[in-house]
């Protein structure tokens, strides 16, 4: 199999020459003695959707958690629009424009749907336009409007995923981090979530997507990185990777081309 230049992680977005909105360079993260991420660099340009693929334990969620400020990097740099954010507390990072829709949804079960959405906007600097944003989310997911006063814990898994997405959008993020939005959902609901993500992409929302479902992720994304045991093992445009499924599989499993 011929080696492609996309094997090496690039520092700037592949296609556009624009300055990246979110840039991670040479990031190292460890939990105690265990190193989860060994020097990963990646970038996401404004309006771009980038997928982060890889097997369990490859470091995908750690990457998102570190960008959000929940985990601290041992070394390296993360910047948003040129400003270093990797030493800031999570609340500041949300305020600067990174919203994280976490794995397992993590909606506040004892709070109502409306209260969950309200808290999504709690870190926002400007409070105006909240009502319109809420309307937009209810238009996107009409079921949430119906269940507005219900506590989030009574929602189905799919509805909770919609709420988690809506809550993240209430922050008016510059970059949306999505951790396994399809996890544990029925196929029909997965389709619905990804249709919504495609709509958001069309509206110009920048996303960094962690997803186990490779086909779904590559269909949505512009570019993708494959992580393996904390390192980038393959990177390229989604179209390229889709065309060369074997190579993606090999990158998952660890064969080096």
């Amino acid at each position: 199999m011929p080696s492609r230049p996309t094997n090496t992680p690039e520092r700037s977005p592949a296609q556009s020459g624009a300055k990246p909105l979110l840039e991670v360079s040479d990031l190292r993260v460890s939990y105690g003695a265990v190193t989860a991420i060994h020097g990963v660099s990646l970038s996401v340009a404004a309006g771009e959707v980038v997928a982060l693929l890889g097997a369990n334990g490859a470091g995908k969620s750690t990457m998102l958690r570190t960008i959000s400020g929940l985990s601290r990097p041992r070394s390296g740099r993360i910047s948003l629009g040129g400003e270093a954010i990797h030493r800031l507390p999570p609340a500041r990072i949300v305020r600067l424009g990174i919203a994280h829709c976490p794995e397992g949804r993590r909606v506040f079960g004892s709070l109502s749907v409306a209260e969950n959405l309200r808290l999504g906007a709690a870190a926002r600097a400007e409070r105006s336009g909240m009502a319109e944003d809420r309307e937009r989310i209810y238009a996107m997911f009409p079921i949430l409007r119906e269940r507005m006063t219900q506590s989030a814990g009574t929602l189905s898994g799919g509805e909770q995923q919609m709420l988690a997405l809506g809550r993240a959008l209430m922050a008016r993020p510059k970059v949306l981090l999505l951790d396994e939005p399809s996890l544990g959902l029925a196929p029909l609901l997965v389709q619905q979530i990804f249709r919504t993500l495609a709509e958001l992409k069309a509206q110009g929302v920048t996303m960094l997507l962690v997803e186990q479902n490779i086909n779904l992720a590559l269909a949505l994304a512009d570019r993708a990185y494959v992580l393996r045991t904390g390192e980038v093992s393959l990177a390229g445009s989604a179209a390229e990777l889709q065309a060369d499924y074997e190579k993606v599989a090999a990158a998952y499993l660890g064969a080096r081309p």
Partner: protein
Amino acid sequence: MNLGLYITQQVINAIALGSLYALVAIGLSMIFGILRMANFAHGDMMMVGGFGTLVLQATGIGFGWAAVGGIAIGALCGVIVERVAYRPVRGSPEVTLLLTSFAVTYILENLGILIFTSSAHNFPLPDWMDNAFQFSDGQITFTQINILTVVLTAVALAGLGWFVTRTDLGLGMRAAAEDMGAAHLVGLDVNRLIIVAFAIASGFAGLGGVLWAAQSGVVSYSMGFTPLLKAFVAAIIGGFGSIAGALLGGYLLGALEILIVAFLPAEVSPYRDAIVFALLIAFLLFRPNGLLKRAQEVKL
């Protein structure tokens, strides 16, 4: 004696006692909800509130303002303790937090002894508070303090209810109590939430302390100990970490204690506390999540 009147009187007593337990238990539960810490120093905020009121009264200002000041001092003390003692060990194993709160208890109580000696001090009340209303030839008695306890507790609870359902800070506190990680992710300023939680919890304990002192007529360095233990029982009955549970538990415990004293044979009364703590053990064994709190369920 008229049984109906007797029952009415005991209901009033139960509500007054339950209010005190609820005031203390709610703060305990709030702090456990957010920090997963059993704050043994919580009862000492009652002492701080009581002594604060006493000292302010000695300066000559009226009882009402002295009590407000005492409660504020209690709230401030809670915030300082959080900042100085608990924040540095936040995130450590739970046993570390627990031991830290024991240390804070010892420090505060010994400060109490150092400043106010170990003997109890009279808690002087203004004349208007020492009145009692009597009905049906004295078969029903409302003391002013009972009425004040119930009214002030109701006002405090209504304020808290408004706060946790209508304000971003209050909603954020409930969110952080449920899932600290997700609270960080939506950008809540968790440090600020914790400070506010300590201020409210300690203010409630301070109010409880003032009312407790008014009921018993004395303040002492160890006055928070018994109510703290009872508040633990109340919070666990209701569901530790749940505000509504602590409220329910407080009133149930108040009702139970009055029931034991008022309706069971007199020989049983001395075992009141034993019965209460047996109930605690029963709850821990058979319903450790309490009456209101459900175990966390995972939904797919």
